[in-house]
């Protein structure tokens, strides 16, 4: 077959050429890349360095473990949120899903429940965990189905389910913390110790929740980078119409990211309840905004198509370290909110400027 097409191709540079560079040049370039792209990482390092010098309590094992446990929960919420935001959506119900999942499983693990004439419980830790995850998946599917089949904007759909999920959680818990002295059966008046260990224990000195968050982050990164689902996620957020004409099942992808978000929210809620040794219907109230802030600080584009989970983890760390530092420095809780808000806006302003100045 005559292949007369790329007649002048040889004269032009080949793809390999852009990669070939001398060592120093490459080093300089990568330093520049880190400075330009790694804004959040640098912000985190600077913040930690400052707190280390400003207070002797920051760099202590117990404090860092504390930061790790708190941040882990936000980070897991934020990882799920990253999937959703990458498709151009937003999930306002993550906190509510976390609370609902934790409440349902905590109730089942501490009380006897009679449903349709069948009495169950208190169930084992393993069953409780599975129930929590199932609640997350179902709640996520509800979000996804409302948005795709119901054709409702993501924002509205999850705003609605946020309220509904909280309501269900209130019904399940009767508005009481679980376990409470009013509802606990004589069989079990406390959450399973494995759950508490997940939330507040350590393995080799590292908070278990932190390890779980790291594991989830790596898994999520691999899914986004190496699987067809990851590709679809970026394609749907980057250009919905292009994804559609390339055969990507847009609706299915959207449902999948909301299921991922719901599933991870359930894990995060479960860990949070374990750390607090208590679940209640209104817990994790700030996690919606915290998770969105972490995603945005981490450099994921709110309109979709660009970003990744590690940025979100760094974003969660920045907010976590910041709150911790302000507490250590005895800043009043009122001023803390101003500082937090300013940091979120500041990081995003910097990020936008960087994008305009240096390209993506």
């Amino acid at each position: 077959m005559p292949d007369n097409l790329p007649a002048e191709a040889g004269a032009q540079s080949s793809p390999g050429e852009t990669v070939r560079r001398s060592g120093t040049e490459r080093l300089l370039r990568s330093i520049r890349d880190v400075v330009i792209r790694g804004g959040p990482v640098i912000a985190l390092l600077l913040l930690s360095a400052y707190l280390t010098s400003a207070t002797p309590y920051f760099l202590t094992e117990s404090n860092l473990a504390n930061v790790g446990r708190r941040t882990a929960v936000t980070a897991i919420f934020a990882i799920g949120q990253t999937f959703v935001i990458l498709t151009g959506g937003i999930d306002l119900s993550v906190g509510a899903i976390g609370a609902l999942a934790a409440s349902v499983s905590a109730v089942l693990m501490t009380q006897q429940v009679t449903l349709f004439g069948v009495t169950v419980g208190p169930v084992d830790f393993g069953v409780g965990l599975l129930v929590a995850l199932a609640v997350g998946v179902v709640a996520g599917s509800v979000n996804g189905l409302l948005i795709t089949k119901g054709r409702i904007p993501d924002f509205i759909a999850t705003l609605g389910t946020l309220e509904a999920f909280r309501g269900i959680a209130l019904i399940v818990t009767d508005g009481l913390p679980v376990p409470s002295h009013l509802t606990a059966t004589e069989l079990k008046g406390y959450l399973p110790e494995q759950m508490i260990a997940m939330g507040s224990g350590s393995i080799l000195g590292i908070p278990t929740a932190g390890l779980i968050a790291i594991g989830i982050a790596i898994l999520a990164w691999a899914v986004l980078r190496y699987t067809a689902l990851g590709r679809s996620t970026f394609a749907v957020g980057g250009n919905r119409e292009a994804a559609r004409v390339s055969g990507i099942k847009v609706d299915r992808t959207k449902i999948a990211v909301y299921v991922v978000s719901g599933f991870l929210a359930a894990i995060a809620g479960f860990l949070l309840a374990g750390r607090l040794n208590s679940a209640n219907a209104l817990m994790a109230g700030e996690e919606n905004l915290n998770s969105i802030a972490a995603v945005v600080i981490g450099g994921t584009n709110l309109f979709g198509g660009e970003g990744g989970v590690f940025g979100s983890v760094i974003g969660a760390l920045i907010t976590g370290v910041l709150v911790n530092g302000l507490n250590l420095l005895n800043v009043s809780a009122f001023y803390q909110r101003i500082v937090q808000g300013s940091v979120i806006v500041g990081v995003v302003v910097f990020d936008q400027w960087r994008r305009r100045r240096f390209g993506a």
Partner: protein
Amino acid sequence: MVYQEFSLVSSMTVAENIFLGQYPRSRLGLIDWREIHRRAEESLSALGVDIDPRAEIRRLNVAEQQLTEIARILTKQPRILLLDEPTSALSDTERETLFDIIRRLQARGVGIIYISHLLDEVPEVGQRVTVLRDGRVIGTLPVEQTDRDTLVNMMVGRRLAEQYPKTVVEPGETALRVENLSLDGVLHDLSFEVREGEILGIFGLMGAGQVELARILFGLEAPTSGRIAIGGRETRLRHAAQAIKHGMGLLLRDRRASLVPMQPIPPNITLADVSQVPPFRFLNLQKEAETAAGYVRDLSIRPPSLKRPVFYLSGGNQQKVCLARWLFSGVKILIVDEPTRGIDVAAKAEVFALIDRLAQRGVAIIMISSEMLEILAMADRILVMRAGAFTAEFKRGEATQELLLQNAS
């Protein structure tokens, strides 16, 4: 500045768009709507067009939108006017009106930079021609000293003996058969077939239903009635993924609707294949990068970076990425809709060469175009479409520009 792609707010009216950001005020400081509509009508009639200033932009066709855009720029009384492919959506008469206006403006002392890839337009409006290629100035000549060949030569950097490199291919089996296809109010009882290795041209003026036809064939829209058989088997496509599975490809007229702009070349090339894979199957990124590098080299996509988002590529190179996607997916039937809209001469020739190469491999090609020259040169058979129905069919060599136009309008 008149952009090639529009910068109108589609939910606002024509008049609102024309005065966007500088609405005339009444004495109370409120927007003077009567004045707006009066002046909008004035500036539109100065262009010699009949568009209702109260119509919403999204209800207008592309040509009307383009004219609105031009009207908007002219109301600003610019001293230097930059027009980027302003005629790409205009009919011949509308184009003449625009040229008249340009000449009038020129007489008034307005400096005009007119960017075009249509060589015939250049001597009509220009005094001097500057040719750019790959971001470099190749040369500037007074318009009297240029003819088509010199210009093409400058633009391509080599003699373009083969701008339309069509080789004769013996058509094979029927690849796609369409019977009595209809879409309410848009398409009426269309029947045709395409064979392997054949290039079927579908010619029609804008809005004759070609876009809808392409979308139906590719499973993006459902027809009201009719049958489609792919490779001899009747098929009902409900989703683009099914069309791709059946070996179909679609090159949209709007490249931006085919590409994921902030992703680099490799994921854009493999997107159609990735859609065929179960969600949790792992992708071989190494192999993907190698494949993409191969296409970049083969199709001379420039700049040849595998990391840069395709957003930054030129139109021609974006189009090559789109084509590479279908080359990679191994198409058997490829629908190309205005494949050369808004790309330069050299890239056009490369796109045609690719289409020809695909036809040689036995790919059935449906080429939808409103550019008569390219459809006459490339197609083995031409169907002329008017208002959603076929009005004529020509074999290669039978048709002329006059015949095409007569049947299309």
